[in-house]
């Protein structure tokens, strides 16, 4: 049999996520599809609309029923997916995780943007703008691992490298703009010298910026992810900057890894895969990088424009 | 000849397979008080609900002043001048008495704003001839008889030509009933036609002009009251002769003491002491609000925290709560069957077994539904309960039959002491005689029985001894031939206690 990298007719790959309606997935799946098209494969978007792990596991298992060649999975939680992923691998389905991992499972690869790198970048940016002895605050969303990591890593980095930076506020706003509005309003009251604000997602950033505007204050806001509103606020100069994971590459590379995991017969690496029985396509971690969005390049990040004319 | 005010002809109504009305008819003239009588479940309330538009007949026609009308709801009925006092009390518990009384007015008014002060003043005026009730109290705070009076007041404020009262006096004493009839006479004199439903024979014969008797959803006869005797009516209602209305009283000496209550005191009654004996039925008489119900609920620990001592069969007992009482065989039949007497949404059988499920359960507390049904069936039969099956919800029964379920629930536990608060409220004459016979039998078999009743003939006909309560105190006790209406009324009147003290 000829060793080529292309799909048989009807060969299908699935991208499975939680909270399917979330706009974050749109450019990721777009990248996934682009790669699938290039290889002549079918791409399917699946998962659960809810924030509910039992439902996501059920949808993952239902994906398996349809006999796909591989699944690119965003596991809502790490450990609950160990067993389902391993069963999928045993059944001969290639599984790659993205944006959230299940490290103890036998998935072949994990594609993500490096939250630690984002946090470090944000910390350095804050220090660059407000100096290394100022007051800063964070909003958080406890329970969601990537958001959690972005916040805790930044705090740890500051403590280690800039001991004069003072963390004066830390509030859970859970992506709710109204909660962020309340929390930031109170922070501004309690800390007149507050200089910078790090927010791990865009929903809270929207509330935060409207609170800052309502209070007539100026403050350096830097946040991760992007939404149309925060994009406009960046253009207007009310938000300093946003760090946005490279979603398209995440999807594209995610597909490639899943695909390679399914076509591992073309790979013959210099290691022990033959005796250990592992899939030769093993990568612990692929960084898809992130984009820095400022006033200058904001126009390239209008999702509507990007998606116009695509499905 | 002018057509009658209201004419119903050949009305049919079924609920599923049950045919509640099978060609009922009724003719009401302006200015008359027209009694409507029939056994429990004969279809009286159903017919009235059809007149008020709450139910739609399966077939038949309704004419007012000879004009055929379609009544699609109470609002339409009101526009046609029809007012109805329901058998079941339906008041808004959180809302003031005054607002309850004028609810229909508020619904129709064109005025945008409420005028509370005016409402209270007018409510006071309407209530005044009936009873002393503060119109600002929420209706839920009133006793059941006071609520009944509010229901009546509500109907009296309607600007109606046809007034229907469905057992308005079931929870009232003769005094209030008399006041009501005085008002009704006045209304009739102004040309208003009144349909009056009651199971109290004496009332009918003293106050009504004509009577229509129904049986099994059909019209039996309509006559001038003057042309009839009570036994004619009973005969028409039940389709057979009733020999005696009341069972024979105790003959000879009463037996051993079963229950002794001493010095019972709580907020609304003081120093109440009495005894119950084997073979004897004790009546408790008094006016509305005298505190009779509260005394019974105090003994049985259902309400308040009464102080006082209780002996059961000569042994002093400490009763902690009502569950304790039931365990010792002391039970209470509530006067408010809908509020706390029955479980409307549950099957009849489950209602009857509620006080002691163990009786119908096998090992490990597993309910034997066959035994449960059989129990309800057998008690139901003795009480002449009219029901399709013991599995039906109590809500589908007629008012009188619901009362029988409430009673069956108590009788099912084979109690040693029973306090019965208005036990025959809404029960027809036939079943009433049956219930009285059962009570007499129980008394003879050694069950202590105390009956609170607002119906004077019942107290006089049934009880061997009557104690009278006035304003929370015992004012006296009558027995044997001393039990007469006049003597009871003297003791019951407000201020009776002071009067009796003065005599001594």
């Amino acid at each position, binding site marked *: 049999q000829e060793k080529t990298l292309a799909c048989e007719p009807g060969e299908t790959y699935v991208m499975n996520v939680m909270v399917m*309606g*979330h*706009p974050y997935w*749109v450019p990721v799946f777009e990248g996934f599809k682009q790669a699938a098209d290039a290889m002549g494969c079918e791409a399917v978007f699946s998962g659960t609309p809810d924030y509910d792990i039992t439902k996501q596991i059920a949808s993952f298992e239902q994906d398996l029923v349809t006999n796909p060649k591989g699944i690119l999975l965003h596991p809502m939680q790490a450990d609950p997916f160990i067993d389902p992923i391993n069963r999928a691998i045993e059944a001969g389905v290639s599984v790659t995780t993205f944006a959230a991992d299940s490290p103890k499972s036998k998935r072949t690869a994990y594609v993500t943007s490096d939250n630690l790198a984002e946090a470090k970048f944000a910390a350095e940016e804050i220090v660059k703008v407000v100096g290394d002895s100022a007051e800063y605050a964070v909003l958080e969303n*406890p329970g969601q691992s990537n958001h959690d990591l972005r916040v805790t890593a930044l705090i740890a980095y500051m403590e280690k490298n800039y001991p004069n930076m003072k963390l*004066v506020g*830390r*509030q859970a706003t859970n992506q709710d*703009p*109204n*909660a962020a*509005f*309340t*929390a930031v*309003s*109170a*922070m*501004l*009251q*309690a800390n007149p010298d507050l200089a910078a604000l790090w927010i791990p997602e865009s*929903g809270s950033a*929207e*509330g935060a910026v*409207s609170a800052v505007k*309502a*209070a007539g204050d100026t403050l350096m806001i830097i946040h991760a992810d992007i*939404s*149309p*509103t925060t994009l*406009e*606020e960046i253009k*207007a100069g009310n938000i300093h900057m946003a760090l946005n994971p490279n979603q398209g590459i995440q999807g594209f590379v995610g597909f490639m890894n899943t695909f390679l995991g399914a076509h591992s017969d073309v790979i013959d690496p210099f290691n022990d895969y033959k005796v250990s029985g592992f899939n030769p396509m093993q990568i612990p971690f692929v960084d898809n990088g992130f984009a820095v969005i400022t006033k200058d390049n904001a126009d390239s990040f209008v*999702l*509507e424009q990007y998606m116009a004319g695509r499905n | 000849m002018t057509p009658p005010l209201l004419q119903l002809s050949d009305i049919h109504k079924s609920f599923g397979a049950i045919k509640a009305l099978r060609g009922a008819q009724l003719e009401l003239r302006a200015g008359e008080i027209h009694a409507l009588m029939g056994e429990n479940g004969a279809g009286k309330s159903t017919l009235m609900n059809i007149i*008020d538009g*709450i139910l739609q007949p399966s077939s038949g026609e309704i004419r007012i002043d000879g004009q055929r009308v379609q009544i699609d*709801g*109470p*609002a339409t*009925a*009101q526009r046609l001048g029809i007012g*109805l006092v*329901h058998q079941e009390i*339906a*008041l*808004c*518990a*959180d*809302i003031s008495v005054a*607002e309850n009384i004028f*609810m*229909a007015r*508020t*619904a*129709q*008014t064109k005025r*945008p*704003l*409420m005028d509370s002060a005016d409402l209270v003043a007018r409510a006071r005026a309407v209530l005044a001839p009936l009873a002393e009730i503060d119109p600002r109290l929420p209706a839920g705070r009133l006793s059941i008889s006071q609520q009944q009076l509010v229901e009546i007041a*509500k109907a009296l404020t309607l600007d109606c030509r046809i007034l229907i009262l469905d057992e308005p006096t079931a929870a009232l004493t003769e005094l209030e009933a008399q006041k009501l009839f005085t008002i009704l006479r006045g209304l009739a004199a102004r040309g208003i036609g009144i349909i009056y439903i009651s199971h109290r024979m004496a009332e009918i014969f003293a106050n009504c002009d004509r009577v229509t008797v129904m049986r099994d959803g059909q019209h039996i006869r309509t006559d001038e009251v003057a042309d009839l005797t009570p036994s004619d009516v009973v005969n028409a209602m039940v389709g057979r002769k009733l020999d005696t209305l009341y069972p024979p009283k105790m003959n000879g000496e009463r037996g051993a003491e079963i229950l002794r209550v001493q010095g019972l005191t709580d907020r609304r009654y003081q120093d109440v002491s009495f005894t119950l004996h084997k073979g004897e039925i004790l009546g408790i008489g008094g006016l509305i609000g005298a505190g009779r119900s509260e005394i019974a609920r105090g003994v049985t620990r259902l309400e308040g925290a009464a102080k006082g001592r209780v002996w059961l069969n000569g042994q002093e007992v400490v009763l902690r709560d009502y569950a304790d009482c039931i365990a010792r065989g002391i039970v209470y039949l509530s006067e408010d069957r809908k509020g706390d007497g029955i479980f409307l949404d549950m099957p009849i059988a489950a209602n009857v077994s509620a006080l002691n499920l163990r009786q119908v359960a096998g090992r490990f507390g597993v309910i034997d539904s066959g035994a449960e049904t059989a129990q309800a069936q057998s008690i139901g039969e003795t009480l002449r309960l009219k029901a399709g099956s013991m599995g039906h919800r109590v809500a589908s029964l007629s008012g009188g039959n619901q009362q029988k379920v409430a009673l069956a629930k108590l009788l099912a536990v084979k109690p040693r002491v029973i306090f019965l608060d208005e036990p025959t409220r809404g029960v027809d004459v036939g079943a009433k005689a049956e219930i009285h016979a059962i009570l007499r039998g129980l008394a003879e078999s050694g069950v202590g029985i105390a009956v609170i009743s607002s119906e004077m003939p019942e107290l006089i006909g049934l009880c061997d001894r009557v104690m009278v309560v006035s304003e929370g105190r015992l004012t006296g006790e009558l027995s044997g031939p001393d039990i007469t209406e006049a003597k009871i009324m003297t003791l019951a009147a407000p201020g009776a206690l002071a009067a009796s003290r003065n005599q001594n």
Partner: protein
Amino acid sequence: METQRQTFLSRLFGARETGLVLIILALFLIMTFASPHFLTWTNMRAMTMAFSVEAIVVVGMTILLISGGIDLSVGSVTALAMVVAGLLFLNGMDPWLASLIAILVCAGVGAIMGFFVTYVGLHHFIVSLAAMVIARGLCLLGTGGRPLGLFELPENFKWIGIGSIGVIPVAIIIFVLFVAVFDFLLRRTTAFRLVYYTGSNEKAAAYSGIRTKRVIFLTTVLCSTLCGVAGIIYMARFGSAQPTFGVGMELNVIAAAVIGGASLSGGKGTILGAILGAILLSLVSSSLALLNVSVYWQDIIRGSILLAAVTFDHYLVKRQAMGGRA
């Protein structure tokens, strides 16, 4: 002296509300000592802004609860208003007209719920649950799950969300207006009294010739309509329409009404009480944020204060009821 004070407060707020007012005053006092930033104009302003829009939804929910209903769809319907108005605006419609249409759409959702409740005979809970899911679906469908950026909204429109008249934000003025008007309507007008009657005992109300189905239908529509109004103000405030806005709002809003004396079985409640409930909930959240209490402790403290407040209020109301009888 103490009695006199109580009577003064009682007269001002009605007996039912006095307890809540006392609790809120106590929290105010504590916070004033706990944080120097608490009793500042800006903080008061920010705190009021935080609940002023949701309070409009609380008004609708309270009226619906009084009539014996309940509405789980308030959060989604609020989001739906934002999305509909946002989409229409992005397609070139005048924002005011777009808002009006969005509010009408919300009213339509309420009418559909009302239809299923009154004419089909289903329970409010299940109908509004279905409506909650469907309305959220419509939001997703309309936006593809992406928030709509409405930065281009004209200033005169944004004014209702972020503008001020003098020093007082417009949103707060709108809030006070809605509360005052509906409190008056519910307390004093014959039309709204029927809502209490219907909720207290639907059968009794029907027997009195009140068209109870119509009352329930209309309160359902009113609640959804007010959600629509709130959604529009949120849109003006945030300059965006978020399809996921208001998830979980229903519990917060119902809690406010219940704390304020409304009952889930109908017939009870006042607008003023419900708003005080909303103020209490919001005050606690704002205070915890102001004191920068650890995230992990916030929920525990918030829940405990809620429980303590309701318990205290309960005893107060009970004592008053006792006293009232004397």
